[in-house]
């Protein structure tokens, strides 16, 4: 018996020692960079050149018959054509006249020649276009000029005039819909409003079985205002990504339309997340984060910009280059109602019907046109006008305009993967390792660091704040916190109150009453779920004591780009984007009041009042074929108020162009790092990250740093006051401190004002 016991004990000991041996064996391999000590590059082509000296013009343009002066102030005149609700705005600064449709054509003659064109001409002339949901009408676009078979107008418009403009009561008598449109001039601006209260779908049988319901889908206000066939020296300013411009040539180089929802897609309406091969490989378009666009007819002379003041969260930006009509068009369509797929079977997802949302989206539509003249009439003017608008509304934090070159580092502390039995934590950078890593980074010469620490919290199935024992526990956390604070590192904790990776009681539901989710496509979780916005203030309040206890005074918030959605609650009531915005603001205001500063990734414009640092600043547009140049529209608005940081440079392939872009736009570099090998992330929720270990990245970071330091140390954080394209592939950014950064993307040296700018290089003048 004892023999057996001894055998058993010996055996156990051997087993134990064996396990120890196996587990301790993890040599680390460091890769020295022996070759390729230079930056990879690619062809860069940008055909757009700014014409630097435009003569200042005065215009003498006609006001056609039928238009009557309604209102006038020291800057503008407003004319109205009552039949079409067409308007004309005269910019008194230089006499430039803006028509709400092309008045030079003889429409009566055209209709006489070809009666079939009447519908399309009506749409062009009509001040308001109503896009409808209707199952018996083919033409879902409805103009104000429509007639029934007897030749009677089906729309009645009654006007009320005031000092500053007019209010039109529009009644579509054949489809039983009415609403008011207010058009007023305020100083240099034209303001158009559609109050929610005035919208009335008054068909008494609406919703009854058998009734052929006609419902509002979109309202388009003056979609042809500023539309043009060709402008010698003009362009459209599109808010895609960092911003882009399209020239108004006689023949567009590509007849491609572009439309994108402001602040991104509304996840509440989607049927189910798209996880097809296409969604895996095709990058989504850049989000539109600024609710503006610009139309410049004559650079340096005439243009206007549009701000969607209210209803921006339901607006879709549209650009049309002579598609369907002969005009370049740029406008917002305001969405009031959408259709969605309602599943009828739990097991068979193919069994579903399309349902049209019953209640209208509840918001007041308000769109502001600012007319630009002289030096303001270009994309810089568009950006600066919007900047001024935000500043006046105190929507931009005022910070001192000093250069602040920082390297941003996101550290992944804890991740999650599927263990043998259940989910397990994967510590990728413990608190102590974070200290060591930051120490090394500082020793490597990075003086100013901005560090966010990110942990996946199993309890919440989300990236939230917690102190983890396996990362070192409370003491180590305090050590890390103190080390970072004492060494001048700007430290934030990364939290995401919006996304969680498992559906739970806080998850919102889509309009089709499934959990509101989208494709995440990490190795660990195929989907993420979006929390109901009404819980955000609660989450924040619950977490605040934790932050307070642990000395967290700054947060990096992510996920806010997903928060604008329309959804249904358990009682089947609709909730709208504007409600969500209020919840977000409440939560952020709470944090702000408690003295916690907030930073965010690619935040939408409505968040600016709460944000201190702008991460993941777009440094390019979506790469659309038809654009003539990518412009720093966003940077012109934001720079000097919030320091901006690039997308992670870990993943760039065209290094020279990207770094030159950082210099051109004045954007700080940014990385995502772990102390442990990137393989640790491979099966986690961060499986899309394929390089993160500092030891593997340090050489590249060093090269990047030395490349951009010369410019960014002097201009980063300073307001960019001007920007232009000096010649093909050469751009000039001018900063408030008087410095000029000339960036040469071409393969040959360029002379700028007597200074030689090296090929694929830049200079600060």
């Amino acid at each position, binding site marked *: *018996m*004892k*023999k057996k*016991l001894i055998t058993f004990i010996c*055996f156990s000991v*051997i*087993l134990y020692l*064996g*396990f120890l*041996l*196996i587990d301790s064996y*993890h*040599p680390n*391999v460091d*890769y020295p*960079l*022996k*070759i*390729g000590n230079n930056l*990879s*590059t*690619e*062809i*860069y*082509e*940008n055909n757009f050149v700014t014409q630097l000296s435009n003569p200042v013009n005065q215009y003498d343009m006609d006001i056609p018959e039928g238009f009557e002066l309604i209102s006038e102030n020291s800057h503008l005149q407003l004319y109205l054509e009552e039949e079409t609700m067409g308007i004309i705005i005269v910019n008194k600064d230089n006499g430039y006249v803006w028509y709400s449709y092309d008045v030079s054509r003889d429409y009566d003659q055209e209709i006489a020649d070809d009666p079939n064109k009447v519908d399309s001409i009506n749409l062009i002339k009509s001040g308001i276009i109503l896009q409808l949901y209707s199952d018996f009408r083919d033409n879902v676009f409805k103009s104000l000029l429509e007639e029934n078979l007897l030749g009677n107008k089906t729309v009645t418009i009654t006007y009320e005039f005031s000092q500053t403009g007019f209010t039109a009561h529009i009644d579509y008598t054949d489809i039983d819909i009415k609403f008011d449109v207010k058009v007023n001039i305020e100083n240099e601006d034209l303001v158009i409003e559609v109050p929610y209260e005035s919208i009335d779908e008054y068909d008494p049988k609406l919703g009854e079985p058998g009734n052929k319901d006609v419902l509002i889908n979109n309202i388009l206000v003056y979609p042809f205002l500023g539309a043009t066939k060709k402008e010698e020296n003009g362009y459209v300013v599109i808010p895609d990504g960092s911003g882009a411009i399209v020239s108004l040539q006689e023949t567009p*180089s590509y007849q*491609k*339309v*572009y439309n994108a929802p402001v602040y991104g897609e509304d996840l509440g309406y989607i049927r189910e997340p798209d996880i097809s*091969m*296409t969604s895996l*490989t*095709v*990058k989504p378009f850049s989000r539109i984060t600024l609710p503006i666009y610009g139309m410049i007819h004559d650079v340096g002379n005439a243009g206007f910009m549009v701000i969607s003041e209210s209803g921006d969260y339901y607006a879709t930006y549209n650009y049309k280059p002579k598609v369907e009509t002969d005009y370049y068009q740029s406008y917002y369509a305001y969405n009031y109602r959408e259709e969605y797929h309602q599943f009828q079977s739990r*097991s068979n997802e193919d069994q579903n019907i399309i349902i049209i949302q019953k209640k209208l989206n509840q918001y007041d539509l308000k769109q502001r046109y600012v007319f630009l003249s002289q030096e303001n009439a270009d994309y810089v003017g568009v950006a600066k006008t919007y900047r001024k608008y935000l500043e006046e509304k105190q929507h931009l934090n005022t910070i001192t305009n000093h250069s602040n070159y920082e390297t941003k580092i996101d550290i992944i502390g804890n991740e999650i993967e599927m263990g*043998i*039995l*259940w989910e397990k934590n994967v510590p990728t950078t413990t608190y102590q390792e974070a200290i060591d890593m930051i120490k090394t980074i500082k020793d490597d010469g990075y003086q100013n660091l901005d560090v966010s620490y990110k942990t996946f919290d199993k309890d919440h199935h989300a990236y939230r704040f917690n102190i983890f024992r396996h990362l070192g526990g409370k003491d180590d956390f305090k050590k890390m916190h103190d080390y970072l604070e004492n060494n001048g590192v700007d430290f934030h904790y990364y939290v995401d109150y919006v996304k969680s990776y498992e559906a739970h009681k806080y998850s919102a539901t889509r309009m089709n009453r499934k959990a509101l989710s989208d494709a995440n496509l990490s*190795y660990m979780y195929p989907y993420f779920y979006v929390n109901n916005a009404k819980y955000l203030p609660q989450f924040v309040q619950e977490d605040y004591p934790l932050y307070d206890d642990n000395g967290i005074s700054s947060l990096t918030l992510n996920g806010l780009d997903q928060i604008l959605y329309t959804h249904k609650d358990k009682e089947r009531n609709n909730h709208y984007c504007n409600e969500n915005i209020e919840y977000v603001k409440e939560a952020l205001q709470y944090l702000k009041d408690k003295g916690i500063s907030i930073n965010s990734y690619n935040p939408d414009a409505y968040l600016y009042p709460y944000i201190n640092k702008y991460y993941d600043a777009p440094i*390019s547009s*979506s*790469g*659309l*074929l*038809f654009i003539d140049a*990518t412009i720093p529209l966003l940077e012109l608005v934001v720079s000097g108020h919030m320091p901006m940081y690039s997308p992670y440079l870990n993943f760039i*392939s*065209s290094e020279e*162009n990207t770094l030159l*872009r950082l210099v051109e736009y004045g954007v700080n570099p940014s990385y995502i790092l772990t102390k442990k*090998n990137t*393989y640790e992330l*491979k099966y986690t929720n961060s*499986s*899309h990250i*394929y*390089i993160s270990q500092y030891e593997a990245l340090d050489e*590249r970071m060093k090269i990047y740093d030395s490349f951009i330091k010369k410019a960014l140390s002097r201009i980063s954080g300073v307001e960019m006051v001007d920007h232009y394209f000096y010649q093909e592939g050469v751009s000039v950014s001018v900063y408030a401190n008087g410095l000029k950064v000339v960036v040469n*993307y071409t393969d040959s040296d360029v002379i700028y004002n007597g200074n030689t700018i090296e090929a694929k290089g830049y200079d600060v003048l």
Partner: protein
Amino acid sequence: MKKLLTLIIMVFVCVFTFSLDVQATNTNAPYYTYTADSNGNLIKTTEAYTPSKQINKINDQSFELLQHIYVDDEDYIYITDSKAITYVEQIDPETGEPMINPNTGNVVEKRYVGKIIVLDKNYQFVGEIYHDDFSNFITSTFVTKDKIYVVDLTNESIFIFNKEEFIENQKIQLEQTITKPTHPIFQDQYNDEGERVVNGYDYRPEHIVVDSMGNIYVQGKKSKNGLIMLDDDGSFMTFFGGNPLRIPIIDRVRRFFLTEEQEDKLQRETDQKIIHDIPSNIAIDDKGYIYTVTSSIPTNPIKKFNTSGRNFFKKDMIGLSNMTSIWIGEYNNVFAINNQGLILEYDTNGNLLFLFGGMDATNSRAGLLNLPVSIAATSDDNLLVADQANKLIQVYTPTEFTNIIHEAFEAYYNDGDYEESREKWEYILQYNSLFDYAHIGLGNSYMRDNEYHDAYQEYYYANDYMGLSDAYWGIRQDWMRNNLNTVILIIVLLLITRVIYYFLNKKYQYSKSIGERINGIRRKNQLFDEMLYIFRFLKHPFDGFYEIKRENRVSMMTSTFIYLLLGIVIILNYRFTNVVFVPKVGINITYELFILGFILILWVVSNYLVCSINDGEGSIKNVYNATAYSLTPILIIMPFIIVMSHVLTLQEYVFYQFGYLLMSIWTVFLFFFMIKDIHNYSVRKTIGVILKSMFTMLILGLFLFVVFALGNQMIEVVKNIIGELINR
């Protein structure tokens, strides 16, 4: 085949000044790029190719219907457009002047449909090939050193032009026309009444390759037997590289039961159901390997054949459905494209290197495609893709990252320069730490330098088990060399301890006192006692069965504990066995344990049920307990195997296997006699009962499955009804 020398047509010298509509874009590609790890999972990576140029017009003429794109050894680009129209001024052969129509006074022009447009490597226009004999459906080209082959689908012909004359002098000189082979298999057969009795084999050439001997491999549009191999005269030689037939499984089962006569009867019916996987494109590399791609096979669409028709690519290579075109690159890497706009690159062994691209119906971003039909690459790895729907050629340029990967493969496989390749692998890892091929490459070069620890780490990252095993062998070798003395010393010390213990024990009777103490615990603690009983049971199994059955020697609690321990041992096996023997990726242990537990319960129940109607003597408790004890060899041996796995490499796999074999035989032996003794059966009856029990398990399992499935629906129905009631 008779050689035809047709009229030399003067090439109409391009009267337009040359113009090429090329658009270039910049910065980010509109798609993500993926690579595959060694387990075949897709992982994101740095961009491999970025869209650079778009060619959509040549000499102000848009493309009409792009069919094919080809790049020859000198980087001349051949674009096949089957619907392009060319008007050519007719030259009077006598005067050399343009012919004038006497009625209209206009120059007489001839209209050609379909042409090959040739560009040089800088995308500059060289010339166009069109011909009287072209039908309206030329599909592709193939170019050798001195010949340009043009394939015509409708005419079922291959036209061979003189390359030098064309490139140097822009002369279109038709040297030879190869028509449909005269071999009887391609001919329709008629009976005496003139009715067609046998259809000739479908020829329909779409793409061809020509090997160094001048043999032509024709990919026919409907060729069910694979490629059609012709000699240089166009005579039929053989079929080559066909895909195996896919017969629906039900027909295969049916065939098994049918007589020959019935089978013949069914043959016609079955023929229609058979899925013929007809290759959709073909390529050849400089070593003469023939590659085919088949759009209807998603799992291993690309095949690499040697001349005897053996496929060198593995069966489980990563592929997509609807892959329509392939191209062999400079390093014998394989490019392919599917009609969703996805572009794939494989290394020379068929491992996926990159997958990128995608479809964009609006075509508003350069680099996304709409209906790509053909892919080709220049010698500097620029990819050219012909997009039929968008009517353009999209050019993709490799990034620095990709160039280095190509160079690394070149250095490693072709030149055997491990030092150089190591530097390149290290560079690659600075841009993608998860690039398994780089880790394997690095591991291999560490192995050559006998740096086993580093190599082990690299292989470990890449999940390369063969490499791991080799590196482990090296580590073990080193360890042995360094520590042999220590090991021997420890063994000697252990022996001495044993001897000392022996003598001390004799004097002080340790073992007796320990034994008494243990017996004391055994008396107090039933579980402990019954656990130690395992050893007695294993030594004397027949006594053990007797005691379990007659004396109730063990309790059900202990058996349950044993089952739990078995579960733990299985988990330990996954967690701690050397990764060389048990891969650590993609196992769902919970699921596995659940299944094992389920089988165990099924066994106990069905064995009891079967035996109780077969005069078995054992109760269900007996079966439960005895089964547990019969499985104990696993408990004893498995930990040893786990520990042993850390001393072994794949080369000594047989030892590892031996452990398993021993364990299995022991367990099966105990199991068999457990049933025999517990139920008191003869050997023959025991076998019968085991088979019956297994059958019962199967039936029970099926039954439970059905109940479970129905039950789920039942619950759903009840839930729905309740939901309706509450809501109404």
